[in-house]
């Protein structure tokens, strides 16, 4: 396998409902990524695009082909990836493998979604399609409901009084909002206190509004190139040194591990092994905080903190700059936003920016060398991890 580098990145702001189409949003992100790479559309050999719900949000299927043509990458092979909220991470991972294999030298990966444009009722319905349609959805399951079920399991398994756990969860939301404030690409620019989290309206017991990420619109794009090509294009290549992906069936069938998600632990193990590193080597991470409790479950599954102890780690600042691993300095899904088919590429965008030392004052980690992304689709159905390393 050849070494593969990120040579250019682009991202729209993640927002509430807006009027640009998916093709338009992705084109904006893609052109920024191409311009950064000093490449032209004709240089792109293939497109790997995450998109989940375009069929529902704007009646657009097969968006990847229209997107490729729209940016002038005429007639290239274009593939769409659908792994719920992990779609774009899968797209980046596959793009990595095709370049690593030697089949292509330069490819474009990314994702686009208009989740906010759908409005909450339709978005809630379509997101629920990523649970089991026959054996879970008839009970009225929704994604907040799944993580609410996991919250109660977490409280019981680790013997943490629910009120105490909810305070710990609220602290993760407060940290996310703090960094979203400083990120011009973030959906939310507001400060939120623990008290406000705990007084926000109930979505799915015990998850309240500020425990939940928003539905967002947005796009992100990543140009990947072989090491040889990358050295010609940039003096700041960021190498993808490890990837992992895993799957799982319906939530009830995962009972032997819950609230841990086996698919994450396998995916992360594969990524760490490929990279030849350990969790303690990771300086910064963008993790899948779709709900506050998901922060705790993810940070433990990734090996950052002991099982049942993540909440305490957040309280001590161990998940912040200066702690063990700086988590979600972008604001995360909670504050940066969650345009689901684009989210994973947005995480890669943030890690690359951080490794290059290019983010805004106040949220830049001090000279990070290794960053990790963690993206979850469905109720553990898809997990994908990427590990990136500064190449200079």
């Amino acid at each position, binding site marked *: 396998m050849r070494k593969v580098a990120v040579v250019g990145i682009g991202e729209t702001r993640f927002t509430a409902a807006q009027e640009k189409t998916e093709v338009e949003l992705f084109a904006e992100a893609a052109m920024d990524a191409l311009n950064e790479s000093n490449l032209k559309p004709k240089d792109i050999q293939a497109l790997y695009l995450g998109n989940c719900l375009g069929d529902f949000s704007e009646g657009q299927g097969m968006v990847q082909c229209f997107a490729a043509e729209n940016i002038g990458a005429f007639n290239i092979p274009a593939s769409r990836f659908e792994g719920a909220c992990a779609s774009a991470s899968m797209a980046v991972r596959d793009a990595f493998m095709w370049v690593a294999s030697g089949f292509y030298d330069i490819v474009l990966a990314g994702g686009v979604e208009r989740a906010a444009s759908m409005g*909450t009722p339709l978005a*809630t319905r379509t997101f629920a399609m990523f649970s089991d349609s026959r054996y879970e959805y008839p*009970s009225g399951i929704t994604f907040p409901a799944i993580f609410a079920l996991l919250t*109660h399991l977490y409280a019981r398994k680790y013997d943490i009084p629910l009120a105490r756990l909810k305070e710990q969860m609220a602290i993760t939301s407060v940290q996310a909002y703090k960094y979203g404030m400083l990120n011009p690409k973030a959906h939310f620019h507001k400060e939120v206190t623990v008290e406000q989290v705990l007084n926000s309206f109930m*979505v*799915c017991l*015990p998850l309240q509004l500020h425990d939940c990420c928003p539905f967002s619109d947005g796009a992100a794009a990543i140009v990947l190139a072989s090491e040889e090509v990358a050295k010609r294009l940039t003096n700041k290549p960021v190498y993808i040194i490890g990837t992992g992906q895993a799957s799982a069936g319906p939530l009830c*069938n995962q*009972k032997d591990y819950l609230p841990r998600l086996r698919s994450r632990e396998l995916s992360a193990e594969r990524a760490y092994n490929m990279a030849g590193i350990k969790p303690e080597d990771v300086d910064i991470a963008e993790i899948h905080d779709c709900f506050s409790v998901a922060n705790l479950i993810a940070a433990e599954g990734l090996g950052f903190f002991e099982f049942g102890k993540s909440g305490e780690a957040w309280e001590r600042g161990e998940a912040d700059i200066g702690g063990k691993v700086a988590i979600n300095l972008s604001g995360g899904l909670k504050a940066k936003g969650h345009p689901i088919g684009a989210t994973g590429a947005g995480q890669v965008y943030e890690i690359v920016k951080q490794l290059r030392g290019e983010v805004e004052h106040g949220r830049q980690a001090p000279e990070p060398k290794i960053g990790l992304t963690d993206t979850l689709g469905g109720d553990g159905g898809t997990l994908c991890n990427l590990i990136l390393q500064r190449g200079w």
Partner: protein
Amino acid sequence: MEYKLTFKEYNEALKKDKLLGLKCKECGKINVPPKMVCGQCTSLDMEVVELSGKGNIQTFTTVFVAPEGREAEAPYTIVMVELDEGPWIAGNLIDIDPGKVTMELIGKRVKLGHKVFPGDKYSAGDMARPLFSFES
């Protein structure tokens, strides 16, 4: 190869308050919902069995923000129940105030009934789901 216990058969049985699963003849595991192969040993050699429908609540939530088309159902409580035969299944819980459920629900004994979700334009038909009530 024929699928041993389809959703259609499972669904029709559940509409009569009968919970069907597959018992593996190799390792003895009970599989609910039904699958092509045993979830424990991947054997194809499984037989259809009727389960007790009784078990313990493992976790719960009450949904206040419902999906499109199901707004009138909210708030409703979802539970995950460990059946006496081992598997976990999800369903709704009745005989409680959905807004006032607490951690005390965990461990409570329940028995199975059913309620039909009439379906929507995406669901390819109606579907029954377990409707649990307290055993005693």
